[in-house]
Every structure is written in structure tokens, then in C-alpha cells.
């Protein structure tokens, strides 16, 4: 059994050895499967009978409606939505896109924003980031997407700071009070695996349709990593710095304000980076609840198969993502630099002054040259139709068409459909037993028990077949991603140059909102299962490649040198030194790939699937909170099962190897 040497010392000597547990689980599962094949399995053992399924969704609906109407929560949330939140959103919408609301100043000319972005880029990261900042906004304006891009940005500039503040506050509370952290931890891990559609519907119901609901969903989605990073940073403050603060006679508030928070600056800023990126990813997705902006436009364009325009919008989103990511990351590593004594005031604030000067300057200039304020319909440089023609004719080239069509046929007919049918044919209890066996084999007893509980809940949710289809898509995509990603990572890890470039590419790709991955999938394969798997595959391959390179790169050089001196070949070195040591890190990548796949499979519902995502997307049109929640929870529980098993394995393995 122990092919990957997962057996750790200390598990022997228990009344039930691992092998015995596994044998019992597997034998029972196969007995059930054989019974079904022989036709002697009673139907109630094949699928849970309808009658036995509890009306969870209805009960939840009743609870929600009680909280919403009888407890009057909806008045509170509606008040927040229509009061302060809407005010903030209206203000930012006025300034950025010129919505007719207070303060009636906007829209700010695009040239002024591009100039300020350039100065900020210069301040945090020099000329390259200045060029990136300016370039992104110039592109957006020139391509004629300024207004929709600003609709997206106007939500981000409100949601990101709010998510930051809430995350910081909750993070501090979790760090300060152990019980609060213990309470928060499981909620956070569920929140992080909950499909985003599940954030959307409650947001719509409680905070009314439109930007407010979008902002609320975005904020909720972006808070968890901020909380985690804050707590992590505060816990990492060196004890001597803390004692130095105490010995300086700090009160509790002074400790927090002057010692802890500034000393945790790096982690908190990493949290800020994540908040910004998640906000962008989520804002794009709020297109599904009808939020205008880049996401909505992309959705519309893809829906009508206008590949050229989709492509352009995709580039805008990617550019925005890269700019926001690079700038906030540059801010993380930026250290304050001192000024010599006696530096005059204007020199100390040179950069702010330049930014202000350019901002005002471009506003004035745009009064003279309207093109600097707004690029009109006739003036923009969009080549949507032309690109469309190019892409379509490129795809129509015989070789390419032949390849994609063959791939589509092969994957569909030979791999995906048979695999799906096999999974669907397995009786529910046998399926659960197999998953439990996997979790137990990989992670040990606790993950095994959780797997049993979680999958039983899924079985009784009434959405078993759709859950299995979701799982099938995830497994197929991750398996394919592994086949491609790991060899690619291994090859890249051989040279420092390739490691660096591929890592950079992966890091960049990870900043793209997941939506972007649908574009090439639809382009190449059209609208079908293969496109779904393909979009998940590229999304999930990124962490696999990344962690393979990192894992192999972090093998201590003494060990590879020792292998070299022992006269091992490249292959021997890889198999018996590098892989075993890199495996725990690679497992983290594998885990992330699965989490990403669960995330993406829901979005891929847009292409057209028959899984939970499809049902979830359908609920968005209505008010079935209970059903939405049950579906979301199913996804979350399945994802958590894998997460627990694999991370538990990686942790144990790391400890056993003395890494960390």
C-alpha cells in the first residue's frame, strides 16, 4: 500500500492497524459495487431514497426568513445598503464614471488618473511600474472601455478599504482572544471553500440588487485572508520588540497602535495585496447578479461568441490585475528611506507634489483637449471585429481545427464520458467508503472521519448526482493538470533561468480573475464539457507547476551535491533525493490545484454544465436561499475533505523529514 511511503512511525501497535482499516473499507466498497453489477443490490443501498432525504433547503429557508423578516435583520442590512454603503459607492461612481450623484464632480479625466497611477507606480517601484500603471490606464481608455472599467474600479475602491478595515479589526480580535480565533477558524475555512455564487445570493437578498450587493459580496469574499494575515503578522512580532514596548511603558492601546501593528507591517500589507486581488476577482464575477462593469461586458461578449471583444476585455482585466498586484506587492517590500537632516519640506514630499501637480494639470488640459477627458465611441482604437476574424480564421486552419476537434472527440468519448459514467454508477455508500479510504490513507484518522461525515451530509442533501458530476469534473481536470504541470515543473526546475521565468509567469497568471480562463477554453473548444475541463485544467495547473518548481528548488544543495558525489544519474537524483524531499511542498500545490478546481468548476457553469454550479447559477435568478446554501455547502464540504486529507499528509511528512 505504502507506495509513496506515507507510513509514518508511531501508527503501529494500535488495535486496528492502518492496513486492516483500509482493507475493510475497500473490500466493503467493492462488495457493494459488485453487488450492483450482479443486480442484487437493493435500490436503497444504491442511492438514498427520496423519502429519506431531509428537507434541508426548506428548513434553511424557514430559518433565513425568520432571521430576515421576524428578527428584522433585513431592515438593518437594507439600512446599511441604502445608507452609508450606497453613499460611498455613489461617491466613487460619480468621481470615476460620472454617475449623477453627490458630489457631482466626476468623471475625472482618464489622463489625470493615468498620470497619478504612473506617479504611484514610480513611488513604489520605479520607472517600470510607472510605465505599467500609465500603460494600463491609457490602454483602457484608448480601447474604449474606460467607462466599464471605471464601473468595476468604483466598487473596488470602496470594497477593498472596507474589507481591509474589517479584516484588520477581526484579525486583531482573533489574535487577542483565543476563543474568538477558535470560533472563527472553521468559519473561515468554510468561507474560503464556499463557491462564490453562495456569497452572491444572500448579498442580493439582504442588500438589494446592484452595486451594493456586489460590494457586500466582494467584501465578504475578500475578508478571510486579511484576517489570517493580520493574526499571523501579530503573532510573529518578535518578543523582544514587544518587551521593548512594555519596558517603554506603553499602555495596551499604545502597544497595539505603536508596536504590534507597525511591526506586523509586512504581513498586513500582504493581506492588503490579497484583499485587492480578491476584490478584483469577485467584482468581475458579480456580473452574474447583473453588476455592470468589465465582468458583465465580458459575459455578454462571450455569450454572443464575440471573441475579439472578449479578448480585448480580457486584456484590460489582466492589465488591471497585474498593475494592482505589482504595485501592492512593491509596496510590501518598499522600506522607508531616510532623508538627510535639513532636507527642505518640498523635497520630502516631492512625489506627492508631483502627483498633485500632474493631476491638476491634466484636469486643466482636458478642458482644452476633450480627448484627454474622454475617448468617444468613434475615436477609440478597438479592433474587436478584426481580431474576431483573425481568431476565427486561425481556428479554422486545418491543422488547428483538426487538432482541437480530435482532442475534443478523444477526451469526450474516450476519457471524460466513460469516467463520468463509471463514477455515477458507483452506489452512494461505496462512493463514500472509497473517499473515506482515500482520506484515511493519505491523511490519517481525523481526515478519514471528517470525510465520512462530510460526504454523508452531501449524500443526504439530495444533490448526490450533481455532486458526483462536480467531483468528476474536478478530478479529471486535476489529473490532466498533474500530467502536464508536474513534468513541466520538473523540466523548468533544472535551470535557474527557466525556474525564474516560469515562476514569474505562474505568479502573474495567479493574479488573473478566474473568469479570464474561460476565454481560451471557449475559443479553442467551443461550448462543451471539454472546454469546462480545459479551463479548469489551466487554472489548476498554475499552482501545480509553481509548487513543483518551489519544492524542487528548496531541496538543500548539500543533499543534491551528496547525490551527485554518490554518482547518481539525473534520474536517480530526481527520484530518490529531490522528489521525496520536495513532495510535501508539491502536495501543497496539489491541494491548491484541487481548491482552485472546485472554485473554477462553479464558474464554468457559464459554459454549460450539469453539476452543482449550474444549479447554483440558476438559484441566482430567484430567492431560494436555502437551496443555494445547500448547494454551496456541498461544494465546500467536498473541497474541505480533500483539503484536510492532503494538508494533513503534507504537514506530517514535513515533520517526519525535519523540514520546516
Amino acid at each position: 500500500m505504502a507506495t509513496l511511503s506515507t507510513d509514518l512511525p508511531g501508527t503501529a501497535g494500535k488495535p486496528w492497524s492502518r492496513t486492516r482499516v483500509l482493507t475493510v473499507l475497500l473490500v466493503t466498497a467493492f462488495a457493494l459495487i459488485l453487488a450492483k453489477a450482479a443486480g442484487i443490490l437493493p435500490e436503497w443501498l444504491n442511492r438514498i431514497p427520496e423519502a429519506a432525504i431531509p428537507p434541508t433547503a426548506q428548513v434553511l429557508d424557514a430559518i433565513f426568513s425568520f432571521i430576515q423578516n421576524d428578527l428584522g435583520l433585513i431592515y438593518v442590512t437594507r439600512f446599511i445598503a441604502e445608507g452609508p454603503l450606497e453613499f460611498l459607492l455613489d461617491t466613487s461612481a460619480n468621481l470615476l464614471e460620472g454617475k449623477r450623484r453627490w458630489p457631482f464632480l466626476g468623471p475625472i479625466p482618464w489622463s489625470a488618473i493615468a498620470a497619478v497611477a504612473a506617479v504611484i507606480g514610480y513611488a513604489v517601484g520605479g520607472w517600470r511600474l510607472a510605465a505599467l500603471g500609465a500603460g494600463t490606464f491609457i490602454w483602457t481608455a484608448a480601447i474604449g472601455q474606460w467607462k466599464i472599467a471605471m464601473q468595476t474600479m468604483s466598487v473596488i475602491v470602496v470594497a477593498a478599504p472596507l474589507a481591509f478595515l474589517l479584516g484588520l479589526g477581526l484579525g486583531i480580535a482573533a489574535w487577542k482572544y483565543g476563543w474568538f480565533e477558535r470560533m472563527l477558524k472553521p468559519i473561515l475555512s468554510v468561507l474560503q471553500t464556499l463557491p462564490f455564487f453562495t456569497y452572491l445570493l444572500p448579498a442580493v437578498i439582504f442588500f438589494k440588487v446592484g452595486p451594493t450587493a456586489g460590494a457586500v459580496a466582494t467584501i465578504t469574499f475578500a475578508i478571510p485572508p486579511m484576517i489570517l494575515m493580520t493574526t499571523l503578522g501579530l503573532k510573529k512580532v518578535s518578543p523582544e520588540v514587544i518587551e521593548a514596548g512594555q519596558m517603554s511603558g506603553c499602555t495596551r492601546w499604545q502597544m497595539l497602535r505603536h508596536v504590534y501593528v507597525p511591526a506586523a507591517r509586512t504581513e498586513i500589507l500582504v493581506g492588503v495585496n490579497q484583499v485587492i486581488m480578491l476584490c478584483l476577482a469577485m467584482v468581475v464575477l458579480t456580473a452574474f447578479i447583473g453588476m455592470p462593469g468589465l465582468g458583465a461586458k465580458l459575459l455578454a461578449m462571450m455569450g454572443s461568441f464575440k471573441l475579439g471583444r472578449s479578448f480585448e476585455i480580457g486584456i484590460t482585466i489582466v492589465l488591471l490585475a497585474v498593475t494592482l498586484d505589482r504595485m501592492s506587492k512593491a509596496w510590501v517590500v518598499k522600506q522607508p528611506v531616510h532623508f538627510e537632516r535639513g532636507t527642505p519640506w518640498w523635497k520630502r514630499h516631492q512625489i506627492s507634489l508631483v502627483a498633485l501637480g500632474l493631476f491638476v494639470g491634466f484636469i486643466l488640459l482636458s478642458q482644452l483637449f476633450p480627448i484627454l477627458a474622454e475617448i468617444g465611441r468613434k475615436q477609440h482604437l478597438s479592433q474587436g471585429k478584426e481580431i474576431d476574424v483573425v481568431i476565427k480564421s486561425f481556428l479554422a486552419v486545418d491543422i488547428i481545427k483538426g487538432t482541437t476537434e480530435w482532442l475534443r472527440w478523444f477526451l469526450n468519448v474516450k476519457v471524460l464520458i466513460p469516467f463520468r459514467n463509471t463514477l455515477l454508477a458507483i452506489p452512494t455508500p461505496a462512493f463514500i467508503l472509497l473517499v473515506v479510504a482515500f482520506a484515511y490513507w493519505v491523511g490519517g484518522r481525523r481526515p478519514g472521519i471528517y470525510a465520512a461525515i462530510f460526504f454523508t451530509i452531501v449524500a443526504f442533501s439530495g444533490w448526490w448526482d450533481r455532486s458526483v458530476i462536480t467531483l468528476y469534473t474536478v478530478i479529471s481536470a486535476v489529473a490532466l493538470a498533474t500530467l502536464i504541470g508536474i513534468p513541466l515543473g520538473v523540466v523548468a526546475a533544472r535551470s535557474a533561468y527557466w525556474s525564474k521565468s516560469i515562476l514569474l509567469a505562474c505568479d502573474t497568471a495567479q493574479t488573473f480573475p478566474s473568469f479570464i480562463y474561460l476565454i481560451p477554453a471557449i475559443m479553442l473548444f467551443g461550448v462543451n464539457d471539454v472546454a469546462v475541463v480545459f479551463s479548469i485544467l489551466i487554472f489548476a495547473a498554475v499552482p501545480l507547476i509553481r509548487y513543483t518548481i518551489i519544492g524542487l528548488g528548496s531541496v538543500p544543495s548539500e543533499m543534491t551535491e551528496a547525490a551527485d558525489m554518490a554518482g547518481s544519474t539525473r534520474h536517480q537524483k530526481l527520484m530518490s533525493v529531490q522528489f521525496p524531499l520536495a513532495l510535501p511542498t508539491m502536495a501543497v500545490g496539489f491541494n491548491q490545484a484541487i481548491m482552485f478546481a472546485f472554485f473554477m468548476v462553479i464558474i464554468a457553469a457559464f459554459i454549460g454544465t450539469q453539476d452543482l454550479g449550474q444549479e447554483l447559477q440558476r438559484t441566482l435568478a430567484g430567492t431560494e436561499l436555502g437551496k443555494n446554501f445547500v448547494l454551496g455547502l456541498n461544494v465546500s464540504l467536498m473541497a474541505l475533505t480533500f483539503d484536510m486529507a492532503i494538508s494533513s499528509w503534507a504537514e506530517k511528512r514535513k515533520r517526519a523529514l525535519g523540514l520546516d
Partner: protein
Amino acid sequence: MSAAAPVISAKNVWKLFGPSPESYLKSLPEGRSFDEIRADGYIAGVKDVSIEVGRGEMLVIMGLSGSGKSTLVRCFSRLHDITGGTIEVDGQDVMSLSERELIELRRKKMGMVFQSFGLLPHRTVLENVAFPLEMRGQDRHDRRERALEVIKLVGLEGREEYFPRELSGGQQQRVGIARSLAIEPDIWFLDEPFSALDPLIRREMQDEFLRLQELLGKTIVFITHDFDEALRLADRIAIMRNGAVEQCDTPDKIVMNPATEYVAKFTEDIDKARVVHARGLAKPVNGHALEGAPIDGGATIHELARVLVNDNRILLPVADDQGVVTGVLERDAALNVLLGAD
């Protein structure tokens, strides 16, 4: 050695780490050893320590890592709450202080220097040094003035606007020292202040530290794991092991009469002639007939080597720094120390 009223007075201090230290301490039988306590699931960070520090005295606490020296000092300033016994600072029981009073005590009377400096990375040298002053609410102008003064004292003029990461280790520790002195504390705690520095810089900083102490005359508790450093700086040395004080005495006496085998191991390789002073080796005058010029009691035997070899008196009078004869040194005994023949 200690003056009439000690500045810090610790009596039977215990600091236990574990699940419920207080009740465990109550049920603890007399004379249980460190290892036995550990077998019970507790770590005796400080084990029944009684010690006093006199005004203006420099007490060096010496011990290897894990011996409890840092823990003991943190008990003095109540960075740790003790499990048993009492600690009085200027006659005040520190355990009875409220949070407010404790903050006041630290703001007015205590300064501390840390091994890895404990500087706030986001503040300049000036802001770091002024930090304790800012915390106690001094106005901007005052604290700037005072901070510049101490920065000058530690020789960092011209670096006021630097950030800690732009300084070398030695310079960072000067900032740490300046910060601890900013509030003009009566009691100065130094927790292995020079251990993180390389040997040459360490030597330089020790000299600098002695210069400062000559200037300021503070009550000092200095922690080190370096026996040479302890001998060099201390008025008295307390040697700790497993949370307990093995011996607490002047350097001369520790070198000449180590109380336990453990202490003796440290003194073995020490060139005693460089440590022992004439007055430390001298016996009371009572009745001896003394003749000739007295020797300086504050000089080490090593410094007196030439005199000891050339002089042929059997007994040498020893004088204090006022020139008053305070004792008598047997030349033979001194030569034995000099030659390393005990």
C-alpha cells in the same frame, strides 16, 4: 556590598512554567530538583532565588542558555509574573502593582537593553530613542531635545534620521542603549546586550559601556553567558544554573573560592592574576608589622607582577585609592596566583 536599602530585593522567587504553576508550587516538597520538577511537567525558570542589588551596583548574572538568567531579569521588571516569593523594587512589591502603577514604574525608573536590540523597524533612530518619552506623553520638542542628547552620548550623532536596518549591529545596539537611557532610569537592565555582536565590536562596546557607567552611575543588572565579560564588568557576579543561583559574589572571590564544582568549571581556564585584585587577596592588617610603600589595592595581581617579583618583602601593605592602608598581601600567595600554582 549592598547599601543600606537595596534597590532590588528578591526573596525566594519562583517562576514555574506549566499547566497550573501556583497550585503545583504550593504542593511542592522541599528540595525537589530541577529534573524532578521537569518530570512533573513543569519547567523551573527561576528556582528559589534570593538576591539583592544595591544602589549604584553592577550585578552581572551569568549562566548558559536556559539557565534562567533572562527569566529572572524579566521577573524583576515584571515582564513575567512570578509564581512565588516577593520582589521589591525601591521597597515596592512589584507583584502588588496595578497595571497603571507598573506602567508608571517602567516609564520613570526602568530601562532595558535587549540582545537583538528590539528596535521598532518603522521608526528612525531619533523616533526609536524618543519612543519611551512619547509613550509617557512628553511634548514633541522636549523629547526631541532629550533624544538628541542621548544619541550624542552613545556616539550616534548624524544618524538621527536613519532607520534601524540602515545601521550595523553595533550601531543598532547603541540605539537600544540610547533608548533605554532616554527616560533617565534609576535601574538599568541589560539582557546580553553584546552577544549578537562580533568579538571586536563587543570589546569596543564593553569599553563604551564602562565609560557610560562611570558617567551615569546607575544600578545595573547585566546578563551574559560570557564569563570573561562578567569578570570584566561586574561588581558582583551571580552564576545561575537550572533556574537557581549557584554562587553570588565578587569576581575575586568567585575566582579564588568557587562555591560549587559547576562554578569551578568556569574558573578553571581563567588567568586568575588578571582578575584578582590586590585588595581581594589581602588579609586584615591585625598586628602585622608593615614597612615600605603600600601597593594599590585596586590593581590586579597581573598589573603588580613586576613589583611582586622584584620586591623582597614577605608582607606588602595594601592601600585603598585614598592611600589608607587597608590590608596586607602575602607576597608568596600573590606569586602563586601569578604563576597559576594554587
